[in-house]
């Protein structure tokens, strides 16, 4: 995969994640992933840690109050002003209107997810549905007029043509086994 495509994929991921997760800085403390109650009123416990917020996310997922929560991952680190470099790109100003439940905007978790994924996986771990890929890149298109609003619809995760080297392997997915792709041994040299 060429550097350009790598960066495009990351860019698409960041844009999509920003729309779904990031909250305007005006909410305070660069906290991301609050529910809409926090957006509107602020919550006394808005800076809680990862685990408790994730627990609440899951616990809330089955309640009728889903529209207020349901963001898959809540960025939890309370940024230390002295050490936190902050987001690398500006946050979109219309995030609040774009924020919505993961079930609406996020990719569905397919049945082939590795079994260790007890919690919803982060979006970059979700296998991309592979659309039919042309054998070579299409000719460059003329620059399109910028949309008046960010695209709020679901994105196609892998729209770019992949180079031949990246065509999926001939071995069937089922033959590849069923465990996680993460390192089995967290300790190298041994």
């Amino acid at each position: 995969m060429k550097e350009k495509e790598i960066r495009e994929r990351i860019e698409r991921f960041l844009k999509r994640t920003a729309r779904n997760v990031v909250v305007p800085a005006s909410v305070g403390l660069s906290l991301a992933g609050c529910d809409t109650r926090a957006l509107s009123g602020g919550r006394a416990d808005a800076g809680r840690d990862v685990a408790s917020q994730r627990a609440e996310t899951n616990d809330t997922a089955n309640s009728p109050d889903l529209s207020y929560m349901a963001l898959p991952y809540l960025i939890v680190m309370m940024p230390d002003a002295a050490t936190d470099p902050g987001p690398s790109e500006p946050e979109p100003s219309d995030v609040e209107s774009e924020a919505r439940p993961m079930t609406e905007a996020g990719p569905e978790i397919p049945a082939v997810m590795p079994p260790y994924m007890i919690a919803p996986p982060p979006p970059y771990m979700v296998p991309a549905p592979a659309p039919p890929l042309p054998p070579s890149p299409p000719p460059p298109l003329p620059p399109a007029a910028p949309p008046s609003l960010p695209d709020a619809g679901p994105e196609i995760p892998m729209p770019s043509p992949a180079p031949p080297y990246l065509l999926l392997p001939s071995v069937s997915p089922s033959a590849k086994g069923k465990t996680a792709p993460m390192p089995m041994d967290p300790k190298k040299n041994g």
Partner: protein
Amino acid sequence: MLEVFRRVGFLPRACGWELTLRCNLRCKHCGSLAGRARDDELSRDECLRVADELAEMRCERVTLTGGEPTLHPAWDELAERLVKGKVQVGLISNAWEWTREHAERAARAGLYSVGFSLDGLEREHDAFRAPGSFAHVLDAIRVTCEVGLDVAINTTIYRENCKQLLAVRGLLLDLGVHSWQLQIAIPTGAMAGHRELALPPEDLLWLVPQIAEFCRDGGGGLRVVASDHIGYFGKPEAHLRQPEVTMPFWLGCWAGLHALGIESGGNVKGCLSLPSALHGEAGYIEGNVRQSSLREIWNRSSGFVYTRGFRTSDLKGFCRVCRYGDLCRGGCTWKRGSQGDPEAGDTYCFYYQAARQGRYDLLEDEPTVEEKAYFRAGVPHR
């Protein structure tokens, strides 16, 4: 690419837990310098508390390791506790004393996989570990498969076994092994005393494509995984990771972002491979579970600064001019710090070696003018 992790959040998804440093082998390449137990290893009750904390933090997977983790008297009790907390638990053993009883205890505890270390064919494996060790591993694989557990094999690649990978793969297929993790011996820990056994970094140009090919095609039923210190970029990259995911390329070290390590004395690091006091380096220790809760250690805003606070200006050597520097963040933190010269950057990098040796045919993008100039200027590093 740190920003990807920042957007997702810093989550302790994968944990390597050294239950004890005690070990019944003295392998030449042991990165942990295992042998004797640490003086202050956590008690059973302390371990159970840590297990509960991991579950509360929604850690997705814990790998129990050591030393030899089965020398910890409560290894299966801890595993069971984690499994009850909905954590997926694996275990890595050297198989030296592994019996059917161990396999049955592992199955009862609910382990999803048991890993054994197999470093080549018999002569090479035994030379690296202990005479007779190879036969123990084969026996362990058989009895573990018989109780219905998935068996994973870890192979550390060094000079003497690097040409045996195809034969080892055939052996693993015959034995019904489920998955195979490949990793390259880096001269650190005990291996620092056997530098002559380490592969020269130039060999990455043939080894990495071969590993990628194994990952692409395990030969029918064997899932092959490249350790995350193998790479980066160039044509093999996509197969070293998962070709089917949205971003099948290296996104930089996970330590302190999605991974953590716990030493048997309670010290917490971003990754168990990172050096600690035994290596004369305490800078990676973020805290100790005896003094603070795991949650507090993980959530400290000043913690894990080498990854969470990464800046491209931190990069050294070629990594500083590399086109992928901001994505890769200098590769595996442990590997980069183990190469002897802190100013060199990561020379055990596929892209570095291909660019340095002019093998642009192995890369997706020809090196930039700046990258070529780096080598023309007379790089002092290999």
